[in-house]
């Protein structure tokens, strides 16, 4: 065991999982590559859990952070904060939500907490509709709406959560239906549920589930839900922590695949926007955002140093049409992986869109999860210089691929070739 690994285990919690039998310390990065303490260079297909959104050590971000650090790191929201106002303006405009207000937090969890606080206060209800197989964060309240046993350390919750069908297209009772029938069945289930309960405050959903293994419903499901929710005044919260900023290629926000009944009432974001600087946030219609009747503050939320990074990162993303790049290069990558998977019974499905791609593994000939295979592929890919992630809700094991959005075609090809060998080495 390396010295650092031993120290890690001695001082950090046991539930803080590490990847790899021989855990890796990443010492620096550039573009789509990182270097390990083992002296090796790795192609990074996970971006520190979808957080290195544009590129490692992107000069534009480094410059903005350095310049800001030279001026002031932090002043708190008690004072006017130019970078915060600028970033809020840009996000409000991009969000698609009319008369939008933006509140910055320091994590996705805190963003979702805020969304829940807003929705329950606005609606005077503590009931929340959530999706099975979802993940919304680690705090006491976020855990309560997370439909994933592996990430639910407690069932205590200030909220009463009701789980709805539909977040997972290819498993569950409706898997065999056509897209249209699948949506109809989920809508019928939702209507039925609403007939039995007091009126919930909101439905919260990830357009593509992240931790759950990049699972998603057919396009349009949440738009169909929204029509039902509207009849009851129930809010729709889109958790865009993983799906935002163009990662899915086809859309800038994940909710846009479900946009024909209009935008969500509340949107939460985090991860990629700061390229590693801790920025989270909530966007909501003004009447919802302003419904709180007491003070509320996040000391670190919107602090200058992170806002400077966010502005530089977002500008780079938009100016270089990284959403388009995610669509093109991600489209190629998914085709490659599907061709690889066609030959391998261990792969049940290659799914996702843009640069958010899941490969679900099973014991060949069955639908059973195969966590050993997932772990083995992770190791084999690392051995060949490729870092990927894994995930999946109960009874599933999924490899997760989410590189920085500047990924080039040749890097995609290189990664696909490594994955082909890594997948071929397990059974």
């Amino acid at each position, binding site marked *: 065991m390396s010295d650092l690994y031993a120290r890690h285990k001695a001082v950090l919690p046991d539930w803080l999982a590490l990847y790899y039998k021989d855990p890796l310390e990443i010492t620096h990065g550039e573009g789509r590559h990182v270097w390990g303490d083992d002296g090796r260079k790795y192609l990074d297909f996970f971006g520190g859990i979808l957080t290195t959104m544009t590129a490692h050590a992107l000069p534009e971000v480094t410059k903005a952070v350095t310049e800001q650090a030279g001026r002031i790191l932090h002043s708190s929201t008690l004072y006017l904060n130019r970078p915060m106002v600028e970033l809020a303006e840009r996000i409000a405009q991009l969000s698609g939500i009319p008369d939008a207000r933006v509140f910055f937090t320091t994590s996705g969890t805190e963003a979702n907490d805020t969304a829940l606080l807003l929705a329950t206060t606005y609606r005077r209800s503590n009931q929340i509709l959530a999706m099975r197989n979802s993940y919304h964060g680690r705090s006491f309240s976020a855990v309560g709406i997370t439909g994933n046993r592996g990430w639910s350390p407690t069932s205590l919750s200030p909220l009463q959560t009701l789980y709805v069908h539909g977040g997972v297209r290819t498993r569950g009772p409706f898997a065999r239906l056509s897209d249209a029938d699948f949506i109809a069945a989920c809508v019928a289930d939702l209507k039925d549920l609403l007939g039995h309960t007091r009126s919930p405050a909101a439905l919260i959903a990830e357009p593509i589930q992240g931790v759950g293994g990049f699972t998603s419903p057919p396009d349009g499901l949440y738009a169909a839900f929204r029509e039902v929710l509207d009849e009851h005044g129930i809010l729709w919260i889109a958790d865009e922590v993983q799906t935002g900023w163009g990662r899915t290629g086809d859309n800038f926000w994940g909710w846009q695949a479900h946009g024909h009944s209009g935008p969500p009432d509340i949107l939460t974001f985090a991860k990629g926007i700061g390229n590693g600087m801790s920025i989270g946030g909530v966007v909501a219609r003004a009447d919802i955002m302003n419904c709180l009747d007491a003070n509320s503050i996040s000391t670190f939320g919107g602090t200058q140093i992170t806002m400077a990074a966010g502005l530089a990162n977002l500008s780079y993303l938009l100016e270089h049409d990284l959403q388009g790049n995610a669509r093109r290069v991600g489209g*190629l990558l998914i085709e490659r992986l599907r*061709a690889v998977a066609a*030959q391998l019974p261990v792969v049940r499905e290659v799914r996702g869109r843009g640069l958010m791609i899941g490969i679900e593994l099973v014991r060949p000939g069955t639908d059973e999860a195969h966590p050993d295979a997932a772990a083995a592929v992770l190791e084999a890919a690392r051995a060949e210089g490729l870092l990927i992630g894994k995930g999946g809700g109960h009874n599933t094991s999924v490899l997760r691929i989410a590189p920085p959005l500047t990924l080039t075609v040749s890097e995609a090809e290189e990664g696909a070739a490594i994955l082909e060998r890594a997948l071929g080495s397990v059974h």
Partner: protein
Amino acid sequence: MATALEPALSVRQVLTLDRVLAGEPEVVAGAGHLDRPVRWVHVAEAPDVGVMLSGGEMVLTTGVLLAGDEHKQTEYIRSLHRAEAAAVVLGLGRAFPVPPDVMRRAAERCGLPMVVLHRPFPFAELTEEVQSRLVRRKFAAVSLSESVRTALTGLITACAPLQGLLDEIAVHAGCPVILTNLAHRVLATAGERSAVDDVLRDWERIARQAGGSEGDGWVRAELSGGGERWGRIVLCGYRGDHPIGRLLAERGAEALVLHRMLHGSAHSWEEQSARGLLTDLVSGAVPARQLLPRARAAGLPVNRRTFVPLVVRDGDPVHLDRVLRLLGLSGLVAELADGAAAVLLSLARDQDAESLTAHFAARLRTEHQAGGTVVAAADARAAWEEVPEGLREARHVADAVADHSAALDLPPVVRLRDVHLRGLVRLLRDDPHVQSFAERELDGLLRGRETEQELLPVLRTYLATGRNKSRTAQLHHVSRPALYRRLEAIQACLGVDLDDFEQAASVHIALLAHDAQQR
């Protein structure tokens, strides 16, 4: 362009001229820089000669104004160096009976070739000799340039094919000439066959290696237009002077760019080369073994591979090629003569040919929601020599199911075992007995009036669907009673009872034989 027109001798070449050799030249400094080009020869005794030079000159001197002043000597060498002179030649004699050490050391330090003549001769003889050579070369270059340009322009305006242009360039170059895309894929070749084959045999390695050095007569010129580079032309082992080779390559490149602008795209060049190769493979005119270098040079991996021959009816080569690239499959795609596209996949030995073929076919179907694209596949071939037969098998399968895909409800991939009787009939189609059998059986319909001839497609579908009346009615968009009337008419024309299995079978075989004739 200027570099190509700049004819020059190197210092080394000047030193080997007979006239110079007679002077017993000795290189006393800068021996590592003898390949510098000499643009002109200049006699100068002035110590401040540097200001009169413009670079590339070989400066001749006796050093009369330098003798005895070591500072001046060093300064003289330095000023030549600053002026980028090619070399300095010092005639030994009264001023310097032996090579001056100070000058030698200074020259060595700045890397300026310094030559002493042990038996000096009048410098005028040397200047005249070198100058006239330089001028001759210049004229040769200009006139070569003109004659190549004239020849190529003539070919282009006469709409000569690409091959014609390359052949012309090869004639002037006297060595193999190769046209590649940026990925080093060979698009076309010209020159003596055996020499070309020698180059192609080892193409992968050579192509990448020759990138840097142009030393061994490998001369390359980029093809670009509209701000985009899309290929290069390579003279492989040009034996003449390098600048002339460059000039040829650049003239060739210009002509090819013009040709593409006027007559089509680089993509079509790639397709042409693939088509030539696949057509030769299918026809069997050239033994497969001999085509191996061409296949390799066209970018098809051939070592320890499995080959999967496929034919796609009405497949668009550009589109098929795109799907291959998308899926990361290596292969060649080209349209064969009769509107069918051939695809030759090359897979690594541990890849699963059958599931990849199925995936490719399924992928094609998802792109063409409307049409049920059918991929005809031969079994995978482990040996290159078996590829031609495999391609013919795939083409046979494709032909056998042509036009019937809808009625036959074919899977995305069809193989020999799926074509049954159709395959056999196709193989026998040239037999006169079969032909007259078909004529006889179908006489009533074939020689009938127009209305009767319109019954033929109905009969075809009816038999292909296994005499399924509702399916036939559906496929022809007619009501069942209308279909019954047509079937009655058919039976009347042919004088057969289609409910009788043997009679129906006979008509079916005849119809298949008749259709096999049409293609």
